[in-house]
């Protein structure tokens, strides 16, 4: 170290401090938004879940864990809870598989009009759920709905099918619509993952006379496998947040057969049909319980991700 460098130290320290302060300053808006819209509601719902409270009564009553005890004995809560997980298990693997196939196809440099296909696949993602709700209700209508008309014309059914009015079909119908709407996002994740596969590998494989299928099976898929855990995690959490779609299309019906957790929470918190007082405390308990369940799921997935990374490192 030279003598000339010595006087610069305080300057550097001050500059670093200024930079650090600037970083924190830039973080403030984000933190404020995070605090107001994520942290505060999170903490508040935990507190509300311990109250017998309608949401507007000036004197909420502290009831401890009574809401949770009631929740555990509520069969409609467990049904909604089960449905949410069934929905997730039905949609995530299908969504990931379909989007992966699409991504691999669109990643092929030889494919013409790939930008157009990407846009078309991504279009439902940016379409408002309310619009999708209306359009899909018309498409699936048993009265002159194009889907039913096509099924009849092709002889696949003898009578029209009430996709959204049948308790047996409604959840699966919603699952298909959900996959169609969101497959574009998952496809983008996969496309990003595919960008990480070095071009030299493709070149080497080509020189070795490897077929396209073999490239996919033995080069691409193993290399993007670690991303699958992250994509699965994001997709699983998204599949738990289906309130707008379900509310727009079935409102949880008929007779609760498409009532997933978010719709259950909304119903108990705000949407009593007979004008009875809402139960914000009880709904909060359901929300907290469900949130914790998702958190447990997330922890498992993070552990799986670490495991995948470790295995990737071993290789």
């Amino acid at each position, binding site marked *: 170290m030279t003598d000339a460098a010595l006087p610069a130290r305080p300057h550097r320290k001050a500059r670093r401090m200024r930079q650090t302060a600037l970083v924190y300053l830039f973080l403030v808006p984000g933190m404020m938004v995070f605090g107001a819209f994520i942290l505060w509601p999170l903490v508040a719902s935990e507190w509300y879940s311990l109250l017998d409270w309608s949401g507007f009564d000036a004197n909420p009553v502290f009831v401890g864990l009574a809401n949770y005890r009631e929740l555990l004995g509520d069969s409609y809560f467990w049904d909604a809870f089960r449905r949410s997980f069934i929905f997730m298990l039905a949609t995530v693997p299908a969504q990931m598989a379909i989007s992966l196939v699409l991504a691999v196809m669109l990643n092929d440099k030889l494919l013409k009009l790939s930008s157009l296909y990407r846009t078309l696949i991504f279009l439902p993602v940016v379409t408002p759920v309310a619009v999708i709700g209306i359009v899909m*209700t018309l498409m699936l209508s048993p009265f002159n709905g194009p889907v039913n008309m096509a099924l009849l014309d092709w002889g696949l059914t003898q009578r029209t099918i009430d996709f959204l009015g049948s308790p047996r079909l409604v959840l699966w119908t919603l699952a298909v619509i959900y996959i169609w709407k969101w497959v574009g996002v998952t496809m983008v994740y996969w496309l990003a993952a595919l960008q990480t596969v070095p071009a030299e590998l493709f070149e080497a494989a080509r020189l070795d006379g490897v077929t396209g299928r073999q490239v996919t099976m033995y080069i691409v898929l193993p290399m993007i496998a670690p991303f699958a855990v992250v994509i699965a995690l994001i997709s699983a959490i998204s599949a738990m947040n289906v309130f707008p779609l379900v509310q727009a299309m079935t409102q949880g019906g008929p*007779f609760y057969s498409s009532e997933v957790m978010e719709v259950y929470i909304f119903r108990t918190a*705000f949407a*009593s049909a*007979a*004008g009875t*007082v809402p139960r914000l405390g009880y709904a909060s308990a359901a929300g907290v319980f469900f949130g914790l369940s998702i958190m447990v799921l997330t922890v498992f997935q993070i552990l799986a991700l670490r495991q995948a990374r470790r295995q990737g490192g071993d290789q």
Partner: protein
Amino acid sequence: MPDITTMNRRTFLAGTTALGALGITGAARAQDITIPAPIADIPTDAPMRWIDTGDQKAVFYRDFFARYTAERGVDVVYDGLPWSELNTVVPLGIRNGTAQDAFVLPSSVPPAFAVRDGWVQPYDGLIPDLEAWKGNFPDGSFIEGLNVFEGKTYGVPYTSALVSGAHLLFNRDMMANAGFDPEAQPLTWDGFREAARKITESAGGRAYGFIIGGAQVGRWSEVVRTLGQMAGAACGKVSIAAGVDFRTGKVIWNADEFVAAVELLLAMNDDGSVFPGSLSMTAPQARAFMPQGAAGMILQGPWNIPVWERENPDFNFGIAPPPAPEGATGKIITGELAEPGNTMFINAKAKNPLAVADVVHYLGTVEGQTAWANVVGPSDPPLFPEALERSSMSKRSTAVLSMFRDIVRVGPNPFARNPELSEVAKAYVEPTPSLASTVQGLFAGQLTGVRENLDILTEATEAALDKAFDEARANGANVSRDDMVFPNWDPARNYVAADYAEL
């Protein structure tokens, strides 16, 4: 090939004529709204904010408030929101101190509760000669425990509750082809089923006899309650009074009339007369199929009439009472004469309470009521009978309101008898499944056994009521299940102040 130039000219002429006619009609309507002299010096330094459930009311208020602002110099902010949003916006506003100056109470908040918790302030002292002005209203508009508390007037109603949300609206041509004329002879249940079957058969799959917006769960309770009441079952409508026969104080959802009403709907479904997809459509979606000729009958409210007349002027439809079994003389029961959902309250922290009182005062005059009737029509009919006579509503609209006077009766209101029942309402948790969900479940095939399920519902509702009463008593409220018993109630006539006094 048509001469495009000529066509354009014709179209232009037709368009300008239509616009001219519309302008004349609009002007005629606008001229009906004359802002009267103010009731006092209205402050102009603070805006007046007003919230209600919008819809056709919003059409009136947007025009009225524009004129009011021009006349008085008071800025008005009007919000018309659906119930689902109003139910959360108003309580949040009260908590945050940002609630509007004037509001209707959320459907789950009894007026006694709002008064007790200091949400609202009385009109006393704001409207001059309040009692004389209230004297213009029909008897039964102001009732202690509903909108008057300890002699002070907190809520002012201005629309009638003598409305059915499930009367018959039908396609006249289809009905005539089926051999029925409900306007001359109201349909019996057998006739209703038969007409639906015949309409369906003659349409050969292009139309169905009956349609219902069954995804909107409340439609099921509205229709079944109406059919059951027309058959002779008599009970309350909402909150802790829902399903309670006030003669005994007991819940009667499993009465023969309600069981038969549900069975009627299921039988029509078995006949294939119900529009396919009814379980997955909302009430507005169902309503939209009627003018298209896709369904022959619907049980809904009078709000359809102005919409269809305006948007589908060629649609030949009629109105009639809800079907009833042969010889039945039942009535539809409502909790009060004046519609609580259109009763305006003044925020206790209102920035411009005088402006609210000024507007409400106008709405409580024959002129205001007439102007209201001309714009809002039968969906929220005016409270003053004179306004109905003076209004320029369509023939169908006046006919439907006249019909309601025959088939709707004001029943007892337990809250008017004991305002402390608001504590019970606060503690009451509606059983799951409710009447609405139970009927939907039966229709969807998720539940089987009409009587068995209505028995379960009745038992659950009784238990929920008992629990709520116990809880309210534990919190110090002086209430009893006897508060729901009105031995002098005759469902065939309106329950009036003298009847309360007799108890």
